[in-house]
């Protein structure tokens, strides 16, 4: 698309003048782009190519950024987390000290030979974290911590292991190799456990001791929340349950392939059931929302039981029946086709909700979609509300598509040209523009009634004119006959001129819609001609009906 096309679209004057100049401008930088194939450049067309080849100047950059090589020193350091003062050394960048004078060997040597004033500490010392293990005295042990099957020696051994392995129970249990006689040689006896203790035994013992020591330290009533939680954990440990759990886990691990497959299929089934129940509950929720307006995100717990469900079903059935009856009774209960503007907020909320649910539901989405995107929740509007929101429910079907704007003009445009002219004349007389400025529903209604009245008026006018014409003809005929009669009698004609004038004035009067009662007298007068009497009579009856209408 060139700029010309754009200008054409925007109705801007086609400026042919500056274009060639522009082209030249574009062409100028084009030629400077180097390092690109001509074909690649031509791909971009009129527009200047956006890929700017990088200028590679390795040497220059290197030379520009050349700095003196960084100095590194082997710095000794120590780790305060260690008990001893082991000094290790690592390479560190030399601090940005004023550069030692280079050139004189002796000088720089002196700087280096200076002993480090202090050895820095390692930054990693803070990571040396140890677990707090309760400690007890002999007295405390004999008072509180005696346990059956445990000697103090073995307890000490356990506590030592716990401390060594930072409460990592698999390790403690693995390394637990207590020998009552303290024979020392445990190198060969990796597997020989004199008194096999299960991990649960060890845990029970440790938790007991930890709990006792905790209580000794802070009595139960003075415990803070964290301490109390800890105490509860210690107290609630159930070795039997733990052993059971482990047994179960072991059987789970040692399943055969068939069992594993079966379990997998069962799990799949469970997942399916869960998904279905979730779907059901969602639907239930929706139903609930539909029953209650405004929708509440209330608890649907009561409907999750089968009893509650039954109840809900019945409720729904009755509701459904009543609804059916109502819809048979009249069309006013039909839900509006387009979303009411007043309820848009709620509508958008619902939509978001549903999309959220779909995205969560994942692969089972499409199957759900059908059920979820059924009839959207809508509130029935009362008559007042409909009026307020301008909602209408067109009952008659329009043939084919049409513009709504046409409905305003149609009463005028589908008339003949003379009629149109007349209508516009009347409208002009009334001071109403032929095109509505603000066609709201109310205005449209008024407009329609006005147009109908105008039409009626024009029809009446037409009829009145026709009658006037016939009356005039009848009058002339009558006058001629009288003339003839008078001629036959030999009387002179006194009102010859008057008659013409009267006829003219009559016509004027009829145009100005002042029909007056004169016509009746005229018709009474002109009843003599038999030929025309019928038409006159009919015209008269027409007139009378008109008058009645008026």
């Amino acid at each position: 698309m060139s700029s010309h096309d754009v200008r054409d679209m925007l109705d801007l004057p086609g400026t042919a003048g500056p274009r060639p100049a522009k082209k030249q401008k574009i062409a100028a930088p084009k030629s400077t782009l180097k390092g690109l194939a001509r074909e690649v450049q031509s791909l971009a067309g009129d527009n200047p190519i956006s890929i700017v080849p990088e200028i590679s100047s390795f040497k220059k950059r290197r030379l520009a950024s050349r700095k003196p090589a960084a100095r590194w020193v082997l710095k000794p350091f120590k780790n305060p987390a260690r008990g001893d003062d082991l000094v290790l050394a690592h390479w560190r960048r030399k601090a940005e000290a004023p550069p030692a004078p280079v050139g004189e060997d002796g000088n720089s040597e002196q700087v280096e030979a200076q002993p480090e004033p202090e050895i820095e500490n390692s930054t990693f010392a803070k990571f040396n974290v140890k677990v707090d293990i309760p400690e007890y005295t002999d007295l405390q042990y004999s008072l509180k911590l005696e346990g059956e099957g445990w000697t103090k020696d073995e307890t000490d051994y356990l506590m030592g292991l716990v401390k060594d392995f930072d409460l990592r129970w698999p390790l403690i249990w693995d390394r637990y190799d207590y020998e009552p006689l303290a024979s020392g040689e445990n190198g060969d006896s990796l597997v020989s456990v004199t008194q096999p203790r299960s991990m649960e035994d060890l845990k029970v013992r440790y938790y007991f001791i930890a709990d006792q020591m905790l209580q000794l330290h802070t009595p139960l009533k003075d415990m803070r929340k964290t301490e109390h939680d800890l105490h509860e954990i210690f107290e609630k440990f159930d070795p039997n349950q733990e052993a059971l759990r482990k047994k179960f886990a072991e059987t789970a691990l040692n399943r055969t392939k068939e069992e594993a497959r079966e379990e997998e299929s069962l799990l799949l089934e469970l997942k399916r059931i869960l998904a279905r129940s979730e779907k059901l509950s969602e639907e239930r929720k929706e139903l609930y929302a539909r029953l209650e307006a405004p929708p509440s995100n209330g608890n649907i717990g009561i409907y999750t039981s089968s009893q509650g469900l039954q109840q809900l079903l019945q409720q729904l059935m009755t509701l459904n029946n009543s609804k059916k009856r109502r819809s048979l009774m009249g069309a006013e209960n039909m839900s509006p086709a387009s979303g009411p503007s007043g309820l848009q907020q709620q509508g958008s909320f619902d939509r978001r909700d549903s999309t959220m649910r779909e995205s969560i539901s994942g692969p089972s989405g499409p199957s759900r979609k059908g059920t979820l995107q059924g009839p959207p929740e809508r509130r029935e509007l009362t008559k007042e509300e409909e009026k307020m929101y301008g909602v209408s429910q067109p009952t008659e079907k329009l043939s084919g598509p049409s513009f709504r704007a046409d409905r305003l003009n149609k009463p005028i445009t589908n008339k003949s040209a003379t009629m149109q002219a007349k209508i516009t004349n009347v409208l002009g007389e009334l001071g109403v523009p032929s095109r509505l400025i603000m066609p709201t529903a109310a205005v449209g209604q008024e407009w329609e009634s006005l147009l109908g009245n105008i039409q009626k008026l024009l029809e009446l006018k037409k009829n009145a004119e026709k009658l006037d014409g016939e009356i005039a003809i009848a009058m002339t005929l009558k006058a001629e006959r009288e003339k003839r009669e008078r001629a036959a009698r030999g009387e002179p004609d006194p009102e010859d001129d008057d008659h013409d004038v009267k006829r003219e004035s009559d016509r004027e009067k009829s145009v100005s819609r002042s029909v007056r009662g004169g016509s009746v007298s005229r018709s009474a007068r002109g009843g003599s001609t038999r030929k025309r009497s019928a038409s006159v009579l009919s015209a008269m009856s027409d007139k009378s009906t008109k008058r009645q209408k008026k």
Partner: protein
Amino acid sequence: MAAQPMTSSMQPTDVYGGDEVSAIILDPGYSSVRAGFAGEDTPKSFVNSHYGVSSSGGSYVFGDDTIHNPLANLDIRNPMSKEGVVEDWDAATKLWEYAITSRLTSFKQADPRTNGLNDDMKDADIEMEGVEEGEKPLEEHPLLMTETAWNNPKLREKSIEVAMESWGCPAFWLARNSVLASFGAGKATALVVDVGASTTSVICIHDGLILKKSVQKSPLAGNWLSSQLRSLFSTTDPKVELVPHFMIASKTPVDAGASAQATYRKFEDTPSASFRALEEERVLTEFKESVVQVWQDHRGLKAGTEYARQQPGRVFEMPDGSNQLWGVERYNVAEGMWDSSSALPVPNESAPSKGQTIPEMVKASLAGVDIDIRAHVLQNIVVTGGGTLVSGFTDRLHNELTAMYPGARIKIQAAGLTAERRFGSWIGGSILGSLGTFHQMWISKKEYEEFGTSIIEKRCK
């Protein structure tokens, strides 16, 4: 483009946690000794564990440059036992010292202004030599050494003694090689399947410490594969002669299956049998690398022999020029590691038991750990050691384990690079030794002097 070198001030020490103190990692094994500086990705020094002893003078020669010379009176020995632990401490110390000093610390680069090399004065030179004589090789470097999980406490004490007394290390640490292998794979909790030269081991690691009850080892490793190969060579219909390279003077190409046409070298004094064994081992290693394959199906080779026969064979040319297409036989060699009944009979050696096969070892190892970590450990199976590089090893292991534990999730972590697989435990040591948080772990010389050798049992658990 983006990988610009970071200046030291930008280096995220807190995240990466590295703080190198130029520690040396020494990872001795039955087939080779790996040594290098912590923080590097491969050991700088890789020395064959076999060393030569001249029977006349009793002097030791180390390294691949010297031990492969077909000398008349060169006896080849190995300081390690069949179990991968040190037998001959004297030789082992020398071998390790060679591994360290030949590549890492021998040439100490001192300041050229003071090292005396640029001085003309003769007496100064002599003085410097005297100083170096008395210097211990590792005085500036903390040493991190590896050991097997079944190492004897006495041997452990010996190793700290060597490091502290004869090498003068400022700090020392002894780590289990399986733990380091799991560190090398980035795991603190893992099941390490390590197939080395002398032993195959399966060990569970929890939080960086071995679980002793889970330690399983068997001799069905690289050397056992070699013995299987020898057995295979001796039982094939035209017997395959295993003649090492040093025996061949020249050879002419022959058709597959034809007998070799080569001229052999004559030695006035034939090299020792141990030398020949070493050289034969090199040929077998080549064979293992290029021909031997593990049958991948967990039902074993017996169930799939027909299918295995249809697989394309592999050709191997012996040093003497004879060559042969190896079909289903190449699967037979490693099958014994998985199915003890398929092992080829080896003279003078008892057949492997069922419990020595890898699947059974994994099973036994898992049975020795707490149930709660079994599933976790099965998701972190680290395969390391040069023996696992036999084609199809990890696939077979995975198939075996998924068949054995269909309910558990099996995930095998096997380094793709050959070097990372062979040097797995060294790399783990390199990582551990370069960590800033490891500084507090070292056993310092002071501590050693205070508590004696027993400190190793107390500290390195």
